[in-house]
């Protein structure tokens, strides 16, 4: 009998490569521009922050009698944010961990961590989707409402945020003597789904990140910018399916100024990885490990005038 590779036993034909393949991980963008707030333990589960409203200006001079003017009323508003608890876990039999050459618990920890961070991001996304005011893009020409995003739409939102005294998130990237680059102004941040990339690339004067004069102050999740807005993209950016005038998908692009929204973590409830060896959880024969994660988080808009959902089709 001829010995060929087809007659070799499977153990000879196959080599188990110990280097694991990559697992897709989503970009985390929605908490990037949130103000982080810590809720101390033993002080309730609703974080209240307050803001004093502006006072009226007083350009009229006092009369010669020097009569005291009427007083103004100082007004305060409160914003409440409830913290909730999130947790998940996996169960591995001890047989798996002592049979398998691969350190499965290590991979479990990595995947749990990824799921936790992506969950934190999605919670903020859903919060912005439900509570940020909406502005439809109208500058495009695809005949839908909203239309696909154009430069005029981005400028309209920048104007709106400027009218509302919203502060920029990032500082200007000034021009440099580098061929093919273009300066970027002080900017608000836009959080978008990756399906918006072709729409961004078609915006007049859109500057891709690689065309910035200096990329030292950028993030890997940043796609580019135009005038006074910089765009950050994620696969789990917000989409409302079949929701436009013509029934097409709408991309919800959250444009935020500084201190427009926040994320609240409880001091004693920060993200934790929890490993329990065999013997816990009604496991008298010590047959099962568990690996879990938990975190406490709340999220809310702190000033509704400083964040806008700029809705676009064309994706």
């Amino acid at each position, binding site marked *: 009998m001829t010995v060929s590779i087809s007659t070799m036993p499977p153990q000879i034909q196959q080599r188990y490569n110990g280097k694991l393949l990559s697992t897709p991980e989503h970009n985390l963008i929605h908490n990037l521009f949130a103000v982080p707030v810590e809720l101390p333990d033993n002080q309730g589960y*609703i974080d*209240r922050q307050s*803001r004093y409203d502006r006072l009226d200006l007083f350009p009229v001079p006092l009369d010669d009698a020097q009569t005291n003017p009427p007083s103004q009323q100082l007004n305060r*508003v*409160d*914003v*409440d*944010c*409830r913290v*909730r608890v999130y*947790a*998940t876990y996996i*169960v591995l039999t001890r047989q798996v961990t002592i049979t398998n050459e691969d350190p499965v618990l290590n991979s479990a920890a990595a995947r749990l961590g990824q799921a936790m961070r992506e969950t934190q991001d*999605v*919670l903020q996304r*859903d*919060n912005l*989707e*439900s*509570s*940020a*005011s*909406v*502005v*439809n893009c*109208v500058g495009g020409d695809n005949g839908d*409402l909203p239309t696909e995003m154009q430069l005029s739409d981005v400028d309209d939102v920048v104007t709106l945020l400027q009218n*509302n005294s919203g502060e920029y998130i990032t500082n200007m990237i000034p021009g440099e003597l580098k061929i093919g680059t273009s300066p970027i102004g002080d900017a608000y941040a836009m959080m978008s789904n990756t399906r918006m990339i072709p729409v961004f690339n078609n915006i007049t004067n859109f500057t891709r990140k690689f065309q910035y004069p200096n990329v030292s102050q950028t993030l890997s999740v940043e796609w580019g910018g135009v005038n006074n807005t910089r765009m950050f993209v994620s696969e789990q950016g917000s989409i409302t*399916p*079949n*929701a*436009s*005038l*013509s*029934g097409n998908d709408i991309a919800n692009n959250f444009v935020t100024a500084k201190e427009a929204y926040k994320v609240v973590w409880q001091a004693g409830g920060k993200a934790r990885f929890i490993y329990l060896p065999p013997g816990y*959880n*009604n*496991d008298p024969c010590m047959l*099962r490990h568990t690996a879990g994660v938990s975190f406490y988080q*709340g*999220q*809310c*808009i702190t000033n*509704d*005038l400083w964040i806008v959902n700029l809705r676009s089709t064309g994706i």
Partner: protein
Amino acid sequence: MLPFQMIAGGTFTVSVSGSTASAVEVVCQSQNPPDFIVAKSITGWGEANQAQAVEWWWERSMAQGTAKGIQQSSHATAPAMNTKFLSSNGIFTYDTTNPPTFTALAATAITGSAGTFVVSMTNTGSIAVGDWVRLTSVVGERQISGYVFQVTAVTVNTSITLGYMASSGITFGADATAAQVTKIIPNRMYPRWAYIANITQATQAVVYFTGKNDFTVGEIVSFRVPELQNGLTTMTQINNLQGRVLSVTNSSTVSSITVDIDTSGFTAFAFSTSLAQLEVSPAIVVPSSSGVVPYNGSATIAQQPPGTNLLDSFDNRNTRVIVFGHSCFDTSSFVSTDGDTWMWQAYKYDQYNGQ
């Protein structure tokens, strides 16, 4: 460890009007979907002279919306039991952060000119009273294309009524002649912005919405009412103004809030027309902040002792729900009695088929 865990359970009451029952939704606060769901009628089990269903169950190998169960016949002493399969409107479960999607259904008319907002549909699908629907591709009333409404009445395979829109008092210049109607299940992040159906001109403005609203007394809300195109006017004076909610109405047909904003001198609220250039954003109310709870709807007197509204906290109210469809309680002649009590349980397998 057990091979399964009971992850939730309890009782619910059935609502029946005539021979039509409402679907029942129960909360199953579980990260993972249940694998086995069962419900049994406490009131009806063995009840004399009352033909009705007494048990329904669903197992994860079955299609969502189906159910298998037992109906008992009408008999004075020994009702007979028969097995029954529901192919639709049975039992289904989902979590509200990732709800099921539904196919768009065709509509042939929307009575906006009369202000009744009855949507004619030869196929109403699974749309039931209380469901949310999005209108798209609306011909003749393009100004509400993309809007979301809550349904207040359904005549199966004939029409649905957008009663919250109708009770707002708004009317359009013409009826719609075609539209797509898609049932949606909203996310339950709270508070949520809401579409404005109408705003009255009054010293304390009443703001109507297209479906039940989540706002609470004392909450501060903010208005977004953009300009219309082609010379049309609307209540843009209220744009970006903030107001305190003085009272809330959420009845079966009316959804509104009264706010401490005097709109009596403002321009009347209006939608764009269908023919107008629709380069507009929708008029909405967005949640802004928490305010002092007013005394009996007063705009100036605070509740004594001062009340702090905690109900308006930004919150994640998403959950997993189990829905027992109306067919569980009103299939053919086996109709439950209004107010019947049922028990239910949901289970999760630790191992399913040895896996």
